[in-house]
């Protein structure tokens, strides 16, 4: 059939708000098809299985385990899982459109870059939330099965984990919007959270300066919130002027720090994405 035989397409370009869910849907489909979502869930499942199995395999078992003690073991991995999600679902989201030249397909459409950004970010967050929710559901289920329930602060920990995910994802998007290659963005995102920020946190333990503004330090609240009573900062003197400091983020301050990171990083990366040019 030639085009002259067809009926003219009547359409109205959707509003910005209507275009966001379209992008979201297809970005999610991409994560499903690329098996990134599946891989993240698999990592979470394997780690939960290993943490659960180790006490049994070493013969310690869970005979004297409390709800708090049982769950803390697992939730300490939550912040690492957040970093894995941010790396898998956020690190190459922006830079990928430029490096893999898919921008040539989507940028000449009647859609604002902000809309594309929001659709992508929402899809990344949705994927991360699915992984984190399944992780917490698995941990909660095992806790019920093993110690007869979950710790009272379990849901607060889940909430902080999701907020940490939001902040980490925003930072991953920011890195993605300033980098020129997907590999560099992915490596930088992962090592920023796994190595660079923890080194800064580590220095604070020696220097005695509490770095409340560190995102990874704030992420410590995800596990700390489960502890009853909540741990307080302490200083241990080793003599000869040597001291070692243990700092714990205040949960409210940690939540605020995460929120600030999320808001600033989202705004900056959206502006950078809008200004970025497809010159290659």
């Amino acid at each position: 059939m030639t085009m002259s035989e067809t009926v003219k397409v009547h359409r109205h370009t959707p509003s910005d708000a209507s275009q966001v869910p379209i992008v979201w849907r297809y970005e999610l489909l991409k994560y499903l098809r690329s098996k990134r979502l599946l891989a993240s869930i698999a990592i979470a499942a394997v780690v939960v299985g290993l943490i659960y199995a180790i006490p049994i395999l070493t013969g310690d078992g869970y005979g004297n385990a409390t709800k708090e003690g049982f769950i803390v073991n697992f939730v300490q991995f939550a912040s690492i899982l957040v970093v894995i999600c941010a790396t898998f679902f956020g690190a190459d989201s922006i830079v990928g459109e430029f490096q893999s030249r898919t921008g040539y397909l989507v940028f000449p459409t009647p859609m604002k870059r902000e809309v594309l950004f929001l659709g992508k970010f929402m899809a990344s967050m949705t994927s991360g939330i699915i992984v984190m929710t399944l992780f917490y559901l698995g941990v909660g289920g095992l806790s019920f099965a093993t110690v007869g329930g979950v710790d009272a602060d379990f849901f607060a920990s889940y909430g902080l984990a999701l907020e940490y995910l939001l902040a980490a994802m925003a930072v991953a998007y920011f890195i993605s919007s300033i980098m020129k290659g997907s590999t560099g963005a992915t490596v930088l995102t992962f090592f920023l959270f796994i190595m660079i920020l923890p080194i800064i946190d580590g220095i604070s333990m020696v220097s005695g300066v509490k770095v409340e503004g560190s995102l990874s330090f704030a992420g410590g609240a995800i596990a700390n919130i489960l502890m009853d009573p909540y741990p307080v900062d302490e200083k241990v003197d080793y003599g000869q002027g040597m001291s070692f400091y243990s700092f714990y983020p205040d949960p409210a301050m940690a939540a605020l720090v995460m929120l600030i990171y999320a808001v600033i990083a989202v705004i900056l990366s959206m502006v950078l994405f809008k200004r970025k040019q497809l010159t290659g």
Partner: protein
Amino acid sequence: MAQRERGQVPMIEIQNLSKSFGPIKAVDSLNLKVSKGETVGFLGPNGAGKTTTIKIMTNLISATSGRAVLHGVDVLTNPKQALDSVGAVVETPEFYPFLTPVETLAYLGSIRGMHSDQIKRRSNEVLQQVKLEEWRNTRIGKFSKGMKQRLAFGQALLHEPEILILDEPTSGLDPRGMVEVREIIRQLKKEHYTIFMSSHLLLEVQEVCDRAALIDKGKLLVYDSMDNLKNLTKVMKIEVTTVSGITDGLMNKIRSMKNVRAVEGVNSQTIVVTFEGPMEARAELLQAIQSLGARVTGFSPVGLPLEMLYMDLVKESR
């Protein structure tokens, strides 16, 4: 479908468009107007500013100054509205490898506000048109460059845009694919689509386009109808065949003739003379060669007039 009407309404209007990359001016105060229903070829050597202009027109890069108005809307200030009536293929775009052609078209159709039944119908039509029906549900990651280029063409046609902007539309295609794409462009031209296409292939532009714009170093050298451009051609190559044979002496004498720029031997009986001058001068050249004792059996222009003009103008601008 009601056929698009041709007319003087400018569908594309580029006004004093400039783009600088540091000290380099990729596009320099470019002015161009494309009327409704016209097919315009955009020509120039590598680095002339063709792709940069097209990238500005399709919201891939910003301009330093000027305007690029599509269907009455400046793409630089309101890209969403300006690109609503545009279908574009810029370079060879990459597709999301985990999606199929049907899913990709559904995505882009939804973004453009097409209903699901329209998307389904038009997807069938364009996939048939670009000969990808049997690959409709195959993930694009498995496609060759040529297949991706054809799909890129398909997505540009999906929403039946008023304006088609094509950057090297036959790039990456095999000879058969190139012929097929040219056929599609001819068909679209009959339906009075407004088409703006850049190309290195002068034959392609000469065959398909109503008008051509030649640019170099970001500046417009000439913009006119194909017929007028052919008449502008001052330099041409003429193949001269004799039965008496071509000697070095004869070639040297022809080289020294008025209006002759170069003489190349093809074989013992044929030479190609690069010549600059009007029709009368061509007749004089023939007479002069014959007066040297050569028994001429063939005297005809070779090469494309547009190619000659292109080489001539680009050489002049450098």
